[in-house]
């Protein structure tokens, strides 16, 4: 027995289940063992979703993916699906999964992957649209309305497609301005808003019917939308109540004289417009009864006269820049009025006002300025429409000759197309002329031509670059025509747009220059720094005395110097600021390559010296030479002395001069500088030390005020590192702050070109008596104390160091009470040919305490220039327990990380004076005059003016 296939009627063996020829299931075999359902075959291990949902086969996996779409997308992106299929041995599916990951649209990618899975339960997408009919009822024209279109996928997979209403102008899809076509894609359902465009509605007695066409991969559907838009009856005159053009025609025929003005004034055209209809008459209305005839002809109620145009081709000639004119004539053989209007898209052509004259209509054609393209022949076209819509296309040829003429001034209000301005001489375009409606109404913009057919005709003769569309009825948000032919980078606006940021940057850079010029040239002048820097008094307040002759103490002139202050009340009376009037108790020691040299000491056999000067201790090059140049508008008041160390070829110049104080503007300060010049061919290590034997009035051991310290120094203090060296120290002659007497002021940081000391020791003067052992302690003598001949190392002794003296032939132990300030500029490598400048100032301080009644005494010190820290010290007399001081800072001054209110430290027990200092470190952002004010919690207040200069006084 054989089995015959029902499909192909061919014979198959008995054991066959499927036809060998066409694969069809043979009769009676399907139930026994049909094809294997691959989709139902279990996986080796289930695929588990993050939610816990298990998929044991492809069927379940497909269902799960569609059920948990978002999670499935994540799993696809993260590669789980790819690796799962790979593990199953399905490299094809793994590859598809990989491609799906890189798909631009993730939804589509996953859907595509799922469509490839061998499952049996996946149904294709199926479109279901609701509603399929929409009746909007009666809608007033210009009245908006909207409804929603619900799209649903009744199958599986991604439903994709488009909704379009291209053929229904009064419907628009989506929100906002809407679009006539929308693309959609959904897994389940999708709601699309549909808008009714009131402006596009046309009134009528019949129901309007629109269509929304839905095309998708799940099928197609058409939604019918209906609306009734009632006609607005004509409102005025003899035509009142007419609801259709035919009724208008009938009423006009019945009463032509009454109707003619309505046609002439455009009332009929406005009525057409209000109903959304296209007025059949193109161009301007004729006058009188002619206007009615024009209307009748346009409606086709009256047979229009046959008209002819004078020319169908015009040849014009002109030189560049000159105007050219021509008149076309439209005539009728019959004795009936002729109407005509014309449009052109040719940029260099312009249509004038049409003159209607009975059987003739004259159409002026004008080239306002022949383009500057000598020798060329340009082609244009004019479209003339006459009675009953009879049209004539007139070819215009413009031959350009001659030389380029002067540019023709354009009429005001006419806007030129910039593309053509750049390309050639100025010419007018159709779109441009529209802006001049008053004078040339015949030329219309494309979207103002109501008839689609005519619009198409104009489009044919209009170059793409000159089509103007204001609306979006072309069915696209993307206004291609508007963009076409306009390269933003080449247009004038484009270039200026790109130049704008460059201009901004250039402006900023020039602002920098302006700032600098202001700072350099104008600002100092504005400040009137001439007056600012002038002296308050040209009489020096201090006197310099040099040791320029040998004597008992120092046999040879040493050019040491002493300083004396003139008494404010009695200028003839001098007060010492150094112990010795000629400064013999001061001394200066040099340290060169580890060897000491005494500045100005040439005698190597000096017995009191504690160190060996060697064979070449030094010699004078010049002594007490007057300093050259000017300071503060007057000749420099000081002297230079030059010492030479021949063994080291080192030149040491000592400059001592009287200069104005930084704040006082009085000649009350002595500027001391040492210039160390290495004239050798070798480098040397060079240091210098200056010991100043201070003395104020009659007191050799007055305590010093040190900025930053909590009490006055009356013993000793060692500032062993450069950063610990204060800006200044000062000492008061008297205990009474209301009348402090002479104030000695020693400033260590004076200018950026003068090196400050790297170490300062404030202590006792090295009295040779201290070398003797002193009972009762039998303390060992201080060997280094050799008075004016003391070496580099000044002994570490206190101002109040105790020593034994003979008094009335009795040996007594007394306090030395002798202060000295020793400044070190440590050894540094000084290269051959290089120099080093060190210095300090010593003089009278500028203090004030009158406002506070002697309770607060303010002093400022340091380099008083912008952006450099300086010190303000308030000395508080008899401070009260818990007393605080508050500093009122002007703007542009800052206290560097410091509180403005500080406690006043108590005076230590046994202190020589009941004064306690409080210090602030300040910084000025800008130069100028400032007033510092310090208030005490006890009520006392003291102010002090401070001048910050662009350049330091000693710079």
């Amino acid at each position: 027995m054989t089995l015959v296939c029902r499909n192909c009627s061919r014979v198959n063996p008995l054991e066959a289940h499927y036809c060998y020829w066409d694969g069809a299931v043979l009769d009676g075999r399907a139930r026994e063992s049909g094809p294997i359902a691959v989709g139902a075959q279990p996986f080796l291990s289930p695929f588990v979703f993050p939610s816990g949902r298990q998929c044991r086969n492809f069927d379940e996996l497909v269902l799960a993916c569609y059920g948990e779409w978002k999670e499935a997308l994540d799993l696809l992106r993260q590669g789980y699906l790819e690796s799962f299929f790979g593990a199953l041995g399905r490299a094809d599916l793994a590859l598809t999964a990989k491609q799906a990951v890189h798909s631009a649209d993730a939804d589509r990618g996953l859907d595509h992957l799922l469509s490839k899975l061998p499952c049996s339960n996946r149904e294709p997408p199926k479109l279901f649209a609701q509603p399929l009919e929409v009746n909007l009822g009666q809608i007033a024209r210009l009245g908006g309305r909207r409804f929603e279109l619900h799209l649903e996928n009744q199958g599986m997979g991604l439903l994709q497609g488009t909704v379009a209403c291209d053929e229904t102008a009064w419907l628009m899809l989506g929100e906002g301005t809407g679009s006539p076509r929308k693309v959609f894609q959904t897994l389940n359902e999708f709601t699309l808003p549909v808008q009714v465009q009131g402006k596009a509605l046309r009134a009528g007695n019949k129901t309007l019917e629109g269509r929304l066409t839905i095309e998708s991969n799940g099928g197609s559907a058409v939604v019918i939308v209906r609306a009734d838009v009632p006609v607005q009856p004509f409102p005025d005159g003899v035509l009142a109540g007419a609801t259709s053009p035919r009724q208008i025609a009938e009423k006009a025929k019945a009463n032509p004289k009454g109707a003619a003005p309505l046609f002439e004034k455009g009332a009929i055209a406005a009525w057409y417009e209000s109903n959304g209809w296209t007025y059949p008459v193109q161009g301007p209305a004729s006058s009188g009864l002619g206007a009615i005839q024009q209307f009748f002809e346009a409606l086709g109620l009256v047979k229009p006269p046959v008209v002819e145009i004078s020319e169908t081709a015009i040849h014009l000639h002109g030189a560049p820049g000159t105007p050219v004119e021509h008149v076309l004539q439209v005539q009728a053989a019959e004795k009936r009025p002729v109407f005509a209007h014309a449009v052109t898209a040719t940029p260099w052509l312009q249509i004038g006002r049409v003159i209607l004259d009975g059987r003739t209509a004259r159409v002026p054609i004008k080239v306002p300025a022949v383009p500057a393209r000598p020798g060329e022949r340009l082609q244009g076209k004019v479209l003339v429409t006459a009675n009953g819509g009879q049209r004539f296309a007139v070819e215009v040829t413009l031959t350009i000759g001659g030389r380029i003429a002067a540019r023709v001034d354009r009429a005001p209000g006419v806007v030129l197309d910039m593309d053509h301005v750049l390309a050639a001489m100025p010419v007018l375009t159709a779109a441009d002329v529209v802006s001049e409606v008053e004078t040339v109404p015949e030329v219309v913009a494309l979207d103002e031509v109501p008839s689609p057919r005519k619009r198409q005709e104009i489009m044919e003769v209009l170059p793409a670059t000159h089509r103007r569309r204001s609306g979006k009825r072309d069915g696209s948000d993307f206004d291609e025509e508007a963009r076409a032919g306009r390269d933003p980078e080449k247009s004038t606006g484009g270039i200026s747009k790109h130049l704008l940021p460059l201009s901004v940057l250039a402006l900023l850079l020039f602002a920098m220059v302006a700032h600098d010029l202001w700072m350099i040239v104008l600002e100092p002048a504005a400040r009137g720094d001439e007056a600012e820097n002038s002296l308050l008094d040209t009489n020096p307040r201090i006197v310099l005395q040099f040791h320029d002759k040998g004597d008992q103490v120092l046999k040879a002139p040493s050019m040491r110097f002493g300083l004396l202050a003139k008494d404010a009340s009695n200028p003839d009376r001098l007060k010492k600021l150094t112990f010795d009037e000629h400064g013999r108790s001061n001394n200066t020691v040099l340290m060169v390559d580890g060897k000491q040299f005494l500045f100005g000491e040439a005698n190597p056999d000096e017995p009191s010296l504690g160190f060996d000067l060697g064979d070449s201790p030094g010699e004078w090059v010049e002594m007490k030479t007057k300093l050259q140049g000017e300071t503060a508008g007057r000749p420099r008041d000081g002297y230079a002395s030059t010492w030479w160390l021949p063994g080291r070829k080192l030149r040491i110049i000592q400059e001592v001069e009287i200069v104005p104080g930084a704040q006082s503007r009085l000649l009350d300060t002595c500027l001391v500088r040492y210039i160390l010049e290495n004239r050798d061919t070798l480098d040397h290590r060079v240091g210098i030390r200056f010991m100043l034997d201070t003395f104020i009035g009659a007191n050799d051991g007055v305590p010093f005020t040190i900025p930053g310290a909590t009490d006055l120094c009356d013993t000793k203090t060692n500032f062993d590192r450069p950063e610990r060296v204060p800006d200044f120290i000062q000492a008061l002659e008297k205990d009474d702050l209301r009348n402090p007497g002479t104030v000695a002021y020693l400033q260590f940081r004076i200018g950026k070109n003068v090196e400050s000391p790297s170490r300062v020791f404030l202590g006792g003067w090295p009295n040779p008596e201290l070398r003797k052992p002193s009972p009762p302690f039998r303390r060992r003598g201080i060997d280094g104390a050799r008075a004016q001949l003391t070496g580099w190392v000044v002994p570490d002794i206190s101002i109040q160091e105790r020593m034994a003296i003979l008094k009335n032939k009795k040996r007594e132990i007394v306090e030395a009470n002798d202060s000295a300030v020793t400044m070190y500029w440590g050894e540094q490598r000084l290269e051959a040919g290089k120099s080093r400048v060190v210095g300090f100032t010593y003089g009278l301080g500028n203090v004030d305490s009158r406002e506070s009644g002697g309770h607060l005494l303010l002093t400022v010190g340091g380099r008083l220039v912008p952006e450099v820290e300086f010190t303000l010290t308030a000395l508080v007399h008899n401070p009260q327990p818990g007393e605080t001081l508050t500093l009122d800072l002007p703007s542009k001054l800052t206290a560097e990380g410091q509180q403005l209110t500080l406690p006043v430290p108590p005076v230590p027990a046994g202190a020589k004076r009941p004064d306690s200092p409080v210090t602030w470190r300040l910084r000025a952002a800008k130069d100028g005059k400032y007033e510092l004010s310090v208030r005490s919690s006890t009520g006392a207040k003291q102010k002090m003016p401070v001048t910050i200069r662009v350049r330091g006084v000693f710079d």
Partner: protein
Amino acid sequence: MSFRLFIYYCMLCGGGGAFLGWMLGRPLALNNVVLTQGFKGMFLGFGISLALALVDSLWVFSLRNVAAIFARVATAVVVGAMGGLLGGLIGQVLYGLKDWGIFLVFGWTITGFLIGVSLGVFDLLSSLVLGRNASMALRKVLKGLLGGTLGGILGGILSLMLLAGWTHLLGGDPEVERRLWSPSSWGFVSLGACIGLLISVAQVVLKEAWLKVEAGFRKGREVILTKPEITIGRAESCDIGLFGDPQIEKLHARIRREGNRYVLIDEGAGTYLNDDLVHGSATLHAGDAIRLGKCVLRFGERQKQEQ
């Protein structure tokens, strides 16, 4: 944006970014000069790389791709600021040892080098992380490196000359010189402009393949193909977004580099190559016009050496 505009804007924004860096670093006055210069360099690198990364990203991406732009700009800013910091520190340390201007130029060269690298770092890292072909990203990094280094050298020399010139013109007093704005600001701006100019010139001159939008969205735009595969469509995720044209699909076509040639692959949406409908894929040649909807792209390719 055309290539010329790209170069112009890179130069301009490099200068502008440097000015921003100068303004940020101007108030800095630490006790340590080396640190101060390091931080000033860091601000300089920050400003220049921020500006250049923005231009580079906006050249390719739409403003809608905020996330992509942000990631690129942030990566570039970090690398650029590091470059500025390193350049400032190294330059100042060497200058402190011996006050030769060449050391400062060396520091700025390091800054330019890393700013150049910064523009391609994101692409390179993302290619490496995602296991994609990183050769084109690496080329972009190398081009930036070359341009940045040359820009650093040229800008450094120009900057030194400006510094000396302005100081000579306006200075004289060290205290006043310290407060001048022109020498340092003009120097910074010239440095930034040179770095921006040469990085962009290197990108453009050494480009291998590019597309020019001749019609459609952002007409006139020219894009260098710096990825092994670029996507074209109206989806925001596309490398070349052609928005506003309903005839263009979300993913409309791809251009893939296959060996030594570029292949146009249609995604079934209707792509025309020189007015012929592309079925599947087609090899691109220099001058080919690709039409998608209303948009027209012109493919350009540098002449290959074997040709």
